[in-house]
């Protein structure tokens, strides 16, 4: 488990409640800045009721080595084979990529959003790597821009 630095935001796991009836063992780690993991897992639960698919962790209060150690502990303890991170350039992503070197079967998805995690949660019948690939495509497709054609300077025009 991740350690807590004194006086800082509580790092470590967040939001991975058992999920109640029919709860499945966690299949993925959601790793993000601040309360990202806790918040997005809560949103998955509200929409899909499948919060048990995920374990969350925050990087709050941790240096790079601690983040990697905490992430490794989560994987060891749960057998999780997929990590979703929030920011491609973030410290969580760097740590996850480090673990990729140790664990060739690990799958890392960066830039995860709610559509990504919902799709993953609802594809529990797929192998984790296939579900992660499917979820990444869903998350990418969920990003759209609407409106803005009348804005000064024309930004957003033709944005699809």
């Amino acid at each position, binding site marked *: 488990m991740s*350690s807590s*630095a*004194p*006086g*800082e935001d509580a790092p470590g796991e967040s939001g991975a409640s058992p999920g109640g009836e029919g709860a499945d063992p966690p299949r993925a780690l959601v790793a993000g*800045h601040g309360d990202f993991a806790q918040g997005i897992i809560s949103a998955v639960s509200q929409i899909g009721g499948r919060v048990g698919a995920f374990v969350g962790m925050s990087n709050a*209060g*941790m*240096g*790079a*080595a*601690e*983040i990697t150690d905490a992430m490794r502990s989560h994987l060891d303890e749960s057998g999780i084979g997929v990590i979703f991170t929030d*920011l*491609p*350039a*973030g*410290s969580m*992503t*760097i740590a996850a*990529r*480090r673990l990729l*070197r140790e664990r060739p079967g690990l799958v890392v998805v960066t830039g995860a959003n709610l559509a990504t995690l919902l799709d993953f949660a609802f594809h529990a019948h797929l192998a984790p790597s296939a579900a992660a690939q499917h979820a990444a495509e869903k998350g990418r497709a969920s990003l759209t821009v609407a409106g803005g054609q009348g804005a000064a300077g024309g930004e957003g025009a033709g944005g699809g």
Partner: protein
Amino acid sequence: MAVELYRIDDRLIHGQVVVGWGQPLDIGFIVLVDDEVAGSDWEQELYRMGVPPGMDVYFATVQEAAAAHARYAADPRHGIVLTGDIETMCRLAAAVPSIRAVNLGGIHHRPGRTQRLRYVFLSPAEERALRDLAARGLAVSAQDVPAARPVPLADVLAGRGDA
């Protein structure tokens, strides 16, 4: 002056650096000064993947960074010079007298360190090193992101700074 920030951050290249500082300062390049990373292609590739298109990252030992500093300073783009620990920044500052300010961006909990700010933990030796930098005329302050108030070293060491 092309180098906008000399930052100590044990996470090295990460969101606060690339996005938090990188966007408002319009950063075009990062110099990651770390003897270990400079000697590892794999580590370099890891950090290179964290940098968005259009932003260059250069890897250098302290000696290499000191030798190339004039080139960084003459670069028409804005840049950040980044070290992962205080000791490395002190060595760089000793070799490059034109460095006049150092930013404490993230020095996290580790055995032997005492918390000074939410994101700054220091050992007695690290505190002495920072005092030495300040005694040589460098402005040392802590500021994790641009929107935060810079906390002068005296306040950092006194534990005054987190609102």
